[in-house]
């Protein structure tokens, strides 16, 4: 067993098919990105704008200075978390698109819990801890509803998560415009501000809040969970073939609910940082589309938790450069959305390309056309 302890490394007789498949898994999304950039360039050219200038500005606005880099990382943080929220259920075969709703519920729950704690002047770190926990618990429970409905009632999880998102937003609005409204919030109904003391600070020496560290740690932890633990193995079996999982006595229902809950907890945590590091209160600003961009991030990363980090940073850069592009190129805010939309469509289309290129592998399976 001594050897068993040491060698996680590539086994000696590692099959070229696997290596080719993993090259393919990187090459196809990259190709899709390039194709999207070209299509988007055509779009810009038709508008009489320079694509070169656009991409130059994205680079400058996203990574050009330490200010823009920090801005990018700040924006990447919720995307890492919502990306994870899509990727984990995807591993077990579920298409859950409700990160937006879990984010809103998590952020709102944290803000609501803060109201009595802050007014009672509870200890800062205890308050923060409780806020984090309730945000994750609320988001997790919210998404777990969809997992449970899927398993026990066969309700399609894509539709239920989408509907749950609308319900989550409605619940927040109900309270924010009613019982929990801060009377001082005139134009934009909000909860009571949690106050400067209870806000999450920045990583020392930067302008990036601590959420980034949480995101990175979670990405690594979930990568380990999915690839190195028995839980991850069982989830992969279930995602790959539920019938085989049942025949092995794997607790398919529990696995589905737990994966949904993990996903919701990630999104709920994103909600917490939106409240406690950015807005200082819960209001309609929480509904910023991070949950949906996260789907895109997860897809580009092929549902691989570690890959989500660089992809989220890329999307963070696109968003961070939005203002610069708006000013310099005189283009509306929605431009970035157009680019994201194009990437999404091209990416979905590229999914059909797996196994089509002889260079990547001797075509996979057999008895199907």
């Amino acid at each position: 067993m001594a050897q068993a302890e040491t060698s996680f490394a590539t086994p000696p007789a590692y099959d070229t098919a696997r290596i080719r498949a993993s090259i393919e898994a990187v090459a196809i999304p990259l190709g899709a990105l390039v194709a999207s950039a070209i299509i988007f360039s055509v779009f810009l050219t038709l508008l009489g704008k320079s694509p070169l200038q656009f991409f130059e500005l994205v680079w400058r606005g996203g990574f050009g200075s330490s200010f823009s880099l920090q801005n990018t990382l700040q924006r990447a943080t919720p995307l890492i978390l919502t990306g994870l929220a899509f990727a984990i259920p995807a591993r077990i075969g579920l298409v859950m698109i409700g990160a937006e709703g879990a984010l809103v519920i998590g952020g709102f729950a944290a803000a609501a819990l803060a109201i009595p704690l802050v007014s009672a002047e509870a200890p800062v770190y205890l308050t923060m801890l409780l806020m984090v926990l309730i945000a994750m618990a609320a988001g997790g429970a919210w998404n777990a509803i969809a997992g449970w409905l899927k398993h026990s009632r066969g309700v399609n999880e894509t539709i239920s998560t989408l509907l749950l998102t609308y319900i989550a937003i409605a619940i927040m609005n109900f309270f924010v415009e009613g019982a929990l409204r801060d009377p001082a919030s005139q134009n934009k109904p909000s909860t009571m501000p949690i106050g400067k003391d209870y806000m999450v600070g920045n990583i020392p020496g930067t302008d990036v809040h601590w959420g980034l560290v949480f995101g990175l740690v979670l990405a690594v932890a979930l990568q380990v969970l999915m690839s190195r633990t028995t839980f991850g193995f069982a989830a992969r079996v279930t995602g790959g073939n539920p019938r085989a999982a049942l025949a092995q006595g794997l607790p398919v229902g529990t696995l589905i609910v737990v994966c949904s809950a993990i996903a919701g907890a990630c999104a709920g945590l994103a909600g917490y940082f939106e409240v406690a590091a950015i807005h200082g209160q819960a209001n309609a600003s929480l509904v910023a589309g991070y949950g949906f961009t996260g789907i895109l991030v997860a897809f580009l990363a092929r549902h691989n938790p570690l890959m989500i980090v660089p992809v989220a940073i890329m999307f963070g850069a696109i968003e961070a450069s939005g203002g610069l592009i708006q000013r310099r190129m005189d283009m509306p805010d929605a431009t970035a959305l157009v680019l994201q939309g194009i990437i999404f469509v091209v990416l979905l289309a590229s999914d059909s390309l797996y196994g089509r290129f002889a260079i990547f592998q001797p075509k996979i399976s057999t008895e199907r056309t």
Partner: protein
Amino acid sequence: MTALALPEDLSSHPVAGGRTGAFSLETVSMTKVFGSLVALDDVSIKVGAGEFHALLGENGAGKSTLVKCIMGFYQPTRGQLLVDNREVLIKAPADAQAAGIGMVYQHFTLVPCLTAAENMVISRADAPAVIKWAKEKEELQAFMERMPFRVPLNTVAADLSAGEKQKLEILKQLYLNQRFLILDEPTSVLTPGEADEILGLLHDMARAGDITVLMITHKFREVNAFADRVTVLRRGKLAGSGSVNDLSTDDMSKMMIGEAQMREKAPRLARVEPKSTIEIAGLSVDDNEGMRAVDAVNLKIRGGEIVGIAGVSGNGQSELVEALAGQRSLAGGAVIVNGRRFDATRKDFADLKVFGLPEEPLKNAAVKRMSVSENIAFRSFDKAPMASIGWWLKPAAMRDNAVRLIDKYHVKTPSAETPIENLSGGNVQRTILARELSGDVNVLIVANPCFGLDFASVAEIRAQLIDQRNKGAAILLVSEDLDEILELSDRVAVMSGGQITYQAPIDETDRNTIGKYMAGH
């Protein structure tokens, strides 16, 4: 080239392209290498026009690989393809279709929710964007009139019987005017009666010079009854070929496995120390539509006993097996193993040592994209030595175990890390066998274990089952192959209309009695 009026009529059809009659096909030095594995080594075969040609070989010999190279699913590493003595280049399945080569798979490729007619029309390479159904139906009707066998055109594919589906697959190829038909184990989903009917018709069409047939099979009976010539592959190489009339079954099996020793029939011990019993008590199970498929079935199997369940497929056997395997919830009753209720949880499987060999292993027992090594670990990945503290995986232990079992059960795979979907059908079966039978087995649920296996593997699996019986396991064997049931069982039960309608010890019954009950009398 006269018997059937199909050539000239078809040539006026949009897809016919004027092709008439059968043509010959030849591979020259066909070679296919997958990574470090030479799946096909310099294979040259010749199939003459109008011939019914059988392709034999053990599991993993390279039969499917050869026909996939012909069909353009794989690009051969080396080698040429001659059609009617002219070299053709086939880069993709569409090229093969254009060249008149069609393939019928072991598994159906029909769209289940479309009718037979729709399935045929959409398969055309030139299917128009807007289909004029009235006109197409008329043409199809006319086409069907000329065919030696028919299927109801307006029935949804899902509602056709297995035999009708397979006929439809073949008709589809004929409708596309494919004059060279490749069939990859076409009869494994059919009853012997259906198989004989379909192969007989194809045989007649070949005789008449309308088509050429190249059929992969493991069944000597079919070869002797229908084929003109055979080619045998062994470990990727051409082992021999010849006319069926000149070769005995023995010659052919020698070509297939060489002088290798076949596994002897395991002796059935008279006195066995029973390990445990399984009792199916008033078990009821519903099918996908919520109809009762298994109706209050009672059955008790002692340790050291094989109970064979015979029956025409679709009488509740698959639902019964799924319920026992935990893939389908019970509508009533219980399963009791050794006096303890068995609920198909992971703990139950492990504690009561219940194992299973389900039919269609890729669908029921394996995860295609996971490696052979991972698939072998399904039973044990969460127990020492493959996991510490029940959480942390140890891939090295997993791999060591896989390498050992791959060797012991002679699974042919490029490596333990190959995705299981890249293995030949028979080797997938062996992988599952290695996983399920390598430990201590108390109860074994087996369904059609020998589908698609070569005769040596069939002998091997049957011997393994007898071995387990002799060691005291209680075995439930569901099979559509009555010979298999008669060979292996200690006791026979017949399932009909969701109920056990007949039960008898093997030496107090015979084929005819069982057959009568199978037919529902």
